[in-house]
Structures are given as structure tokens and as C-alpha cells.
């Protein structure tokens, strides 16, 4: 049986982990590769790096990061942040990423998903959707870290990018991100029910019950979290045990 995945996400900027990772005694809490190794050893199901200050100038830093991680961690790695075109996808895949995540470039031109999926296969093309509630049961895509409204309906957009070949949706509720009050479950459910591809729930995790709800109520195939793991509130194994106790199939080690 396919297991539900737990994905710790590391926000990076200029090759360093933003805010640091403090759940084990790392020599350098800001080194993404060291953090990745610790999560690999802890039994995380996948890893995600998001470059939150991606610019053209620091592209090579992200490629280097993917390369150094893939040399030491033999587990699936998704990389995103500032990915604009199939050339970026190719460079990240060659560096060692298994999946590459598009965000604003897909909003600006959904055809970039078709171009990338046709070339590299849907299995490695993720679209990160940042959505906010605009009315009950209605969610809209926001870009630029949630500051800029686009007027695009989140469900319509999810269906569009999947029809273009996206193999996975990384869904972040911008209302919830950083709040620790739990995923936006109606949004997660609406997207998970609408699309045929796996949905990763993200944004708002503050407790282990939130992870459970993302799957049982939100219908997510995977749950992504940052701070509850980085700051040592819970270990990956504690999270897995809690989810398994709630009846969710997990890969235990």
C-alpha cells in the first residue's frame, strides 16, 4: 500500500537555511546540506528546498545546493524558487533534484508546465499553488509571497496546470502559513477532490493532529511542514507514529 508522505521543507536564501534548523546538534544549523542529512537519518519521506530569494544571480547557489545534497542523501528531493523555464528544470534535475517546483512562472504562463512536462515527464513537475480565501468556499491565487492578488480561481488553476502535465500540486494556504492553527482543510479538500494527481498540504501546521487532519479531512497525499520539525517540537518519527495511530498508512522505520 502506498504510504502518506511527511515532507520537511527548508526555506533557503543565498544557500543558507532561513531561521536555521535546531532539532539536532548540527555543527552549522544554517547549512541546508547538513539539515538534509539529519532529516534523511530521521526517516523523512522526501525533502523540499524552497529558495525564497531566488534571483537570476544566485541560481548557481541553488544548483550547487541540490548537487551537494544529492551526493549525500539518497532520498527524494524537490527544489523550487524562481524556476522559470525548462532550462531551469533541466539544470536542477541534472544537479540532483528529483522534482522541480514552479510557482509564479506557472501563473504567468501555464504553458511552461506543458513544455517542461513534455520534455522531462509529469513525474518531476510540481506546481506550487499559493491560495487565499476570498469568500466562503472560494479561493484565489496570490503571488509575491501572498501580497499580489491575481483574480485566478485556485481550483480552476489547479485543473489547468494538471491538464498541462503537472504531476503534483504543492498547495499552500496563505491565510494559514506561519499561523500554526492548522491547514486550510476546505481548500485542501476542494483541490484534492478536483485533481487526479497527488496534493501536498502546506501552511499552518502547529500540532501533530493538524498533519492527521490534512490527510483524513483534506484528502492530501502528503503533508509538508517546516517549523514544527526545524525547532524540535516534534521528530519525524513522532509525527509518523501519531499519524499511524490515527489509521493513516505510514512508512515506519
Amino acid at each position: 500500500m502506498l504510504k502518506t508522505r511527511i515532507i520537511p521543507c527548508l526555506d533557503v536564501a543565498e544557500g543558507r537555511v532561513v531561521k536555521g534548523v535546531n532539532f539536532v546538534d548540527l555543527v552549522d544549523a544554517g547549512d541546508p546540506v547538513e539539515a538534509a542529512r539529519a532529516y534523511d537519518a530521521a526517516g523523512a519521506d522526501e525533502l523540499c528546498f524552497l529558495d525564497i530569494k531566488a534571483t537570476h544571480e544566485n541560481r548557481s547557489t541553488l544548483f550547487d545546493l541540490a548537487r551537494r545534497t544529492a551526493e549525500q542523501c539518497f532520498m527524494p528531493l524537490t527544489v523550487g524558487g524562481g524556476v522559470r523555464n525548462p532550462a531551469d528544470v533541466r539544470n536542477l534535475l541534472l544537479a540532483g533534484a528529483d522534482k522541480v517546483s514552479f510557482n509564479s512562472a506557472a501563473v504567468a504562463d501555464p504553458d511552461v508546465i506543458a513544455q517542461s512536462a513534455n520534455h522531462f515527464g509529469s513525474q518531476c513537475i510540481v506546481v506550487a499553488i499559493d491560495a487565499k480565501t476570498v469568500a466562503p468556499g472560494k479561493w484565489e491565487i496570490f503571488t509575491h509571497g501572498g501580497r499580489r492578488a491575481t483574480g485566478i480561481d485556485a481550483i480552476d488553476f489547479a485543473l489547468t496546470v494538471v491538464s498541462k502535465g503537472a504531476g503534483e500540486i504543492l498547495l499552500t494556504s496563505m491565510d494559514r502559513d506561519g499561523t500554526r492553527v492548522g491547514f486550510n482543510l476546505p481548500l485542501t479538500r476542494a483541490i484534492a477532490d478536483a485533481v487526479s494527481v497527488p496534493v501536498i498540504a502546506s501552511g499552518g501546521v502547529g500540532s501533530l493532529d493538524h498533519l492527521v487532519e490534512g490527510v483524513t479531512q483534506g484528502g492530501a497525499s502528503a503533508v509538508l511542514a517546516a517549523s514544527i520539525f526545524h525547532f524540535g517540537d516534534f521528530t519525524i518519527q513522532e509525527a509518523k507514529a501519531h499519524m499511524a495511530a490515527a489509521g493513516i498508512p505510514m512508512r515506519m522505520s
Partner: protein
Amino acid sequence: MLTALIDYESGNLHSAQKAFERMAAELPNEEVIVTSDPEKLRRADRLVLPGDGAFPACKAALVEKTGLYEALLEAVEIDAKPFLGICVGMQMMASFGHEYQTTPGLDWIAGDIRPIAPTDPRLKVPHMGWNDLVITGAHPVLEGLKNGDHAYFVHSYHFVLKDKAQRLAHVEYDDEISAIVSAGTRIGMQFHPEKSQSTGLHLISNFLNWRP
């Protein structure tokens, strides 16, 4: 002994290379190269065909490289060197692929590459993540592998074999999905051993130790 990872510009070779290098370093006199040079393939003692991407594109890339396809056939079909196909590289071992269009494969194991089409709408495609192996056959490369060990899968098509005796392991995903297939000196894995943490590294090590 020299292990050649065939570079046909498909997918992520870097992690496969690093995983093979890691396990080769633990064995005496083992070397790993990544190459598309037919001469180097001829010198290799065993071959690995990794792969990510669509079946027709991968097949075309394999055939287009001058001399590569011929060197692969010579090494595997005539010289019977151990061969490992990974993901699409495993699917290439089939008679035909039916992704986008019908494309002939290497026809080393009779069967077809068909879309994963679960009847349960809650089951998503791609089949993406960790699934537990149901082992149905014995093989030196599977030594130490246990029923229920997890491997990392990411694919939308799967290998439907004519003769299930050539399948050594499968996973459940509505239907049974072929996970490990083999015929003679050839073995294929649908999942990514280079991404399957200790289970995957163990299988890579077994392949490097295999002397059929």
C-alpha cells in the same frame, strides 16, 4: 570490475551515479562510470540503464546516440553482462510501451508498459511515494530484502508481464504494480533504488556483487 551507467540524456543521472559510487567504494576494485561512449560500454563488466521521462523520448534518445544501442545489445544479448534497468530503464526491457504512442522496447521480457488506471478515484496518478514490496521470487540481487520493505516510486505507467514468473516483486496500488522483474542476466526495478535510502543502497550493493 567496471560498472557503466548509460548516459542517454534522460533524467537525473547524478543521484544514481553517487549512489553507485557510494556502494562501489565499499567493495574492492570497483569502478563506476557514466558514459554514452560505445567503446567504454564494451569495456564495462555490467551495465545500468537509469531513466526518467517518457518511454518514446527515452527509446529515441537511446537509438539516436551513434553506436550506443548496438553496444548495449552486444553487451547484454551476446556477452550476457549483468544489466540493471531503473524506472523507465526497466520499462525499456518490455516488448512495447504505450505512452503517447506504441513504441517497441528492447523486448527482453515479454509484456507491455500500460497506464496506471486505478478504479478507486482516491488513488492518484502518478503513483508517487513509498510503497511496500511483496516479494514473490528469489534472486541474488534481492538477498536480504524483506517482504514489506519500502521503496520509492514515481511513475504513471507500469509493466504488465506476459509471464508473471518473471516478476520477483510487486506493490499494491489498486492493481498489482510490477516492482522488480528479471530474466537471466537482466534485472529491472520500477522504483528508484538510488532514492530508496538504505533499502535501495542495499539492492545496489547486491547488484554490484552479482556474478551470474
